[in-house]
């Protein structure tokens, strides 16, 4: 499906606008990384006539990226190729090294700057930018705020205010559009550098965001009809005047609702020398509507505001407001009515085709795609549709078959889209054979020392006194202490203070889930030590009252996230468990997020006061379909956060010496431990267990 859509993206490239790109990227399917062959085919489609033998090295670099980054690369390559094929080829050569040399936000800004230069036909400058990406980074203005840096913060900020989920998208840098909203997404400039310091530029971002939020909360879209007829009668001056006065009205709303934002607006006015701002225009009206704006327009001299524009002003043009209403309305007749009105509304109104396209983008992406396809691709499209239907039928059939298995579906966090991919990972619990097998790894004599150490450590938990005697305060009188004190009265009068016994009832209520990574990288002696540790610990833990379960995880791709139950909570420790542990062997990859979600769910069902999710791993999240790098870390981080929200205590024990690069971010500073000597794992694991549970 992803391949199909990406192909379509490539074919449709020249006909699309930024908004369509954004929508399609969200609908694009798999996160599986593309192979070099697949990439070469796609690049050939974009750069017609390119000699694929000469691009092996850059393509290899691109192949190492995640699917999301590869898709982004193809999109960017296509859009640059539209402007200049030779520059697109140069970009192909430098794309991956540039990505390594800069942060993601800097990279996005670099690309946007290249596109802007090309759109302004500054070809030499664009070439310098492409080839001199190192200089670009070093000369980058650190006062500029990139949207990618602040989008998450702004999104979270508005999520605390708005009932609806609003996301943030960026405008095409070359289009010089004003910020606007479609009711679901706020479209902001890709970067802001209006001021010579970062804080002010960020303030401007914030003000623009709140202006757009204000458009929604102050219901500016109610003015569509009057706006359309005004534009029809007076042209764009009417729109300009409306935009200005409506912005002032939203500012008036912000002044009383979010004084902090208003303070920033005043500051911006001062710094950008905005003169004659009509602050008193709505003074006295506590609750205003868009009709107050229209009334002021009627009363005032029509030309008095027409040339003014505020630096943070959003786009109020009817087609943008209609998008907002399209998102908010489910009533098709209203949409058609709006569309018809729009068509009648003068020279700047959208044509029927364009508006139909816009609506169809929202409601039927397939139809839109079909409408825009060249004739020669119509047949292919139909074939693809059949393939999709076939695929859906197969998936349905497979689900039916799986109803008898222990199969679960979990979402996965796509950090590039900033949203979950629902039911993305198929997790299956696969029983491990408990057939008699060589358990030589668990029968070694040198394990006795480890076993002794573990036992000693855990005995400290087991032997916690239930009654503490000689206390100054307690539940009962300690008769022995009293008698003793009485007999020693002349010597130690103070002994009479310590004659109570405190019932220190062992209130340990612990459930621990051991999640053991058995990916291919643990093959060999690592696997043997993991087996030994797991066995020794489970054997010793069985003497405690603590509930514990052991599950191993590995897999290959999102469709095959395998979980191997070694010991479930309800099971007692037995020789069967030992056999299962002995049969644990290194498997394939580590899709950690899905495993954590599944095991968190199981652990959450255990009844215990303290619930610990103990992950034993040898490296970072990694899977075949580009579940690696930033993507894998972010999904795993999300899964750990979900576990924390369930009041579980995740903890990671790792052998990966490079864990400092990702574990503090993924889990927090104090929630992981690095074992430098894996041979010490059996002892270390029990020490950590004690620390975690006492």
């Amino acid at each position, binding site marked *: 499906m992803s391949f199909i859509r990406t192909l379509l993206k490539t074919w449709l490239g020249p006909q699309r606008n930024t908004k369509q790109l954004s929508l399609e990227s969200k609908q694009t399917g798999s996160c599986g990384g593309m192979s070099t062959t697949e990439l070469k085919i796609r690049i050939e489609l974009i750069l017609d006539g390119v000699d694929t033998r000469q691009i092996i090295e850059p393509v290899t670099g691109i192949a190492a990226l995640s699917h999301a980054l590869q898709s982004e690369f193809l999109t960017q390559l296509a859009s640059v190729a539209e402007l200049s094929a030779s520059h697109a080829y140069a970009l192909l050569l430098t794309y991956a090294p540039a990505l390594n040399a800069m942060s993601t936000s800097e990279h996005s800004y670099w690309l946007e700057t290249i596109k802007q230069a090309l759109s302004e036909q500054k070809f030499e400058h664009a070439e310098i930018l492409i080839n001199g990406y190192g200089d670009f980074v070093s000369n980058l203005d650190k006062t500029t705020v990139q949207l990618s840096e602040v989008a998450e913060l702004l999104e979270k900020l508005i999520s605390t205010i708005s009932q609806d989920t609003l996301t943030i998208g960026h405008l095409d840098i070359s289009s010089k559009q004003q910020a606007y909203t479609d009711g679901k997404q706020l479209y902001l400039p890709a970067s802001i550098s209006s001021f010579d310091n970062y804080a002010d530029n960020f303030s401007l971002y914030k003000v623009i965001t709140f202006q757009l939020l204000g458009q929604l909360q102050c219901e500016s879209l109610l003015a569509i009809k009057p706006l359309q007829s005004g534009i029809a009668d007076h042209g764009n001056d009417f729109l300009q005047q409306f935009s200005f006065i409506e912005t002032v009205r939203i500012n008036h709303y912000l002044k009383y609702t979010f004084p902090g934002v208003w303070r920033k607006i005043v500051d911006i006015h001062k710094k950008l020398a905005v003169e004659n701002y009509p602050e008193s225009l709505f003074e006295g009206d506590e609750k205003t509507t868009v009709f107050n704006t229209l009334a002021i327009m009627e009363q005032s001299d029509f030309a008095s505001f027409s040339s003014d524009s505020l630096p943070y002003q959003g786009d109020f043009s009817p087609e943008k407001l209609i998008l907002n209403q399209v998102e908010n309305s489910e009533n098709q007749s209203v949409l058609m009515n709006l569309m018809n009105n729009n068509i009648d509304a003068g020279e700047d109104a959208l044509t029927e085709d364009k508006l139909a396209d816009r609506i169809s983008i929202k409601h039927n992406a397939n139809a839109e795609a079909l409408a825009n396809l060249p004739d020669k691709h119509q047949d292919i499209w139909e074939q693809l549709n059949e393939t999709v239907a076939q695929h859906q039928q197969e998936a349905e059939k497979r689900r039916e078959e799986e109803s008898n298995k222990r199969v679960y579906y979990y979402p996965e966090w796509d950090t590039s889209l900033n949203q979950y991919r629902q039911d993305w990972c198929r997790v299956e619990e696969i029983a491990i054979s408990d057939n008699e097998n060589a358990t030589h790894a668990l029968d070694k004599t040198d394990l006795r020392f480890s076993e002794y150490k573990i036992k000693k450590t855990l005995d400290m938990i087991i032997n916690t006194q239930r009654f503490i005697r000689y206390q100054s305060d307690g539940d009962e009188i300690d008769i022995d202490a009293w008698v003793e004190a009485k007999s020693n009265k002349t010597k130690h009068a103070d002994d009479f203070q310590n004659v109570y016994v405190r019932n220190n009832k062992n209130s340990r209520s612990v459930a621990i889930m051991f999640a053991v990574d058995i990916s291919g990288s643990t093959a060999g002696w690592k696997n043997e030590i993991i087996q030994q540790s797991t066995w020794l610990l489970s054997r010793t833990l069985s003497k405690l009252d603590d509930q514990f379960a052991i599950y191993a995880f590995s897999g290959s791709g999102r469709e095959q996230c395998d979980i191997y139950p070694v010991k479930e909570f309800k099971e007692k420790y037995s020789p069967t468990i030992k056999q299962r542990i002995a049969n644990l062997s290194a498997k394939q990859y580590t899709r950690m997020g899905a495993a954590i979600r599944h095991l968190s769910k199981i652990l959450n069902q255990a009844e215990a006061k*303290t619930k610990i999710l103990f992950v034993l791993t040898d490296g970072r999240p990694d899977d075949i379909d580009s579940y690696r790098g930033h993507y894998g870390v972010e999904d795993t981080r999300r899964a750990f956060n979900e576990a924390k929200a369930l009041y579980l205590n995740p903890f990671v024990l790792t052998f990966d010496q490079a864990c400092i690069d990702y574990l503090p971010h993924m889990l927090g500073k104090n929630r992981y431990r690095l074992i430098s000597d894996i041979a010490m794992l059996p002892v270390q694991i029990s020490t950590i267990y004690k620390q975690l549970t006492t």
Partner: protein
Amino acid sequence: MKPMNTDNKTINNAEYFIEKEPYYQPSSNEIEIFNTALAENIPVLLKGPTGCGKTRFMEYMSWYHKRPLIAVSCHDDLTTSDLVGRYLIKDSSTVWQDGPLTTAVRNGCICYLDEIVEARKDTTVVIHPLCDDRRILPLEKLGQLLKASPDFCLTMSYNPGYQSAVKDLKPSTRQRFISIDFSYPAEDIESVIVHEESKLDLKQCELLVKLANMTRNLVGNGLEEGASTRLLVHTAKLIYRGFEPNMACKCGIADAITDDDDTKTLLHEMIDTVF
């Protein structure tokens, strides 16, 4: 065993009276419900997030009914003896010392067990015979069954926000109570409460409440619990005493509710938006 009556008072009830009317702004019909429960000798369970006014409500009702209030903050180590009583040593002999629950039962007080789910489950079971029509408290160590005074009332509070397998009420306990739900008050009422408690200008209090509601929208997305009314009152007092609102909110709200750097940055941004 025949239950003993509680004719002899063991404390001077006046010591436990709340003399000055506590400020309390009702959000709904909680006062009427409580009055009815009191008249019918039905125990009351107050549910709500931390700092929303549960304890203040109890103080108010104690003052309103002129009944002494004995409040116990429950915790992990709270034992049955801590509630019921124990023997103490005095002059080479042992004397019985009533615990707060027994004191309340004997003297017809309102006993308020705050954050009951924090107590161990075996401890909470001791209240069961007090919470049904028997209204008796077994004093095992004395070998007595103590019949509750007609004025005795048992009230407990807990925060459903902490609900987990270990911090939940047993159904057998839960089903002995009338429940009053204390969520955060409506914005206008909460603003008035903050204003009355801190004397800060009402407009500023409204902004504080707006900020609190924004933090409450973050619950489950970086925060375990949003800013409580109590935190707002603390912050309002700081502002009233001359602190800059931004600084007061950072100290009084943001830094108090999270240690996570990312969430703190977001909270600071929210403060900057509102003030």
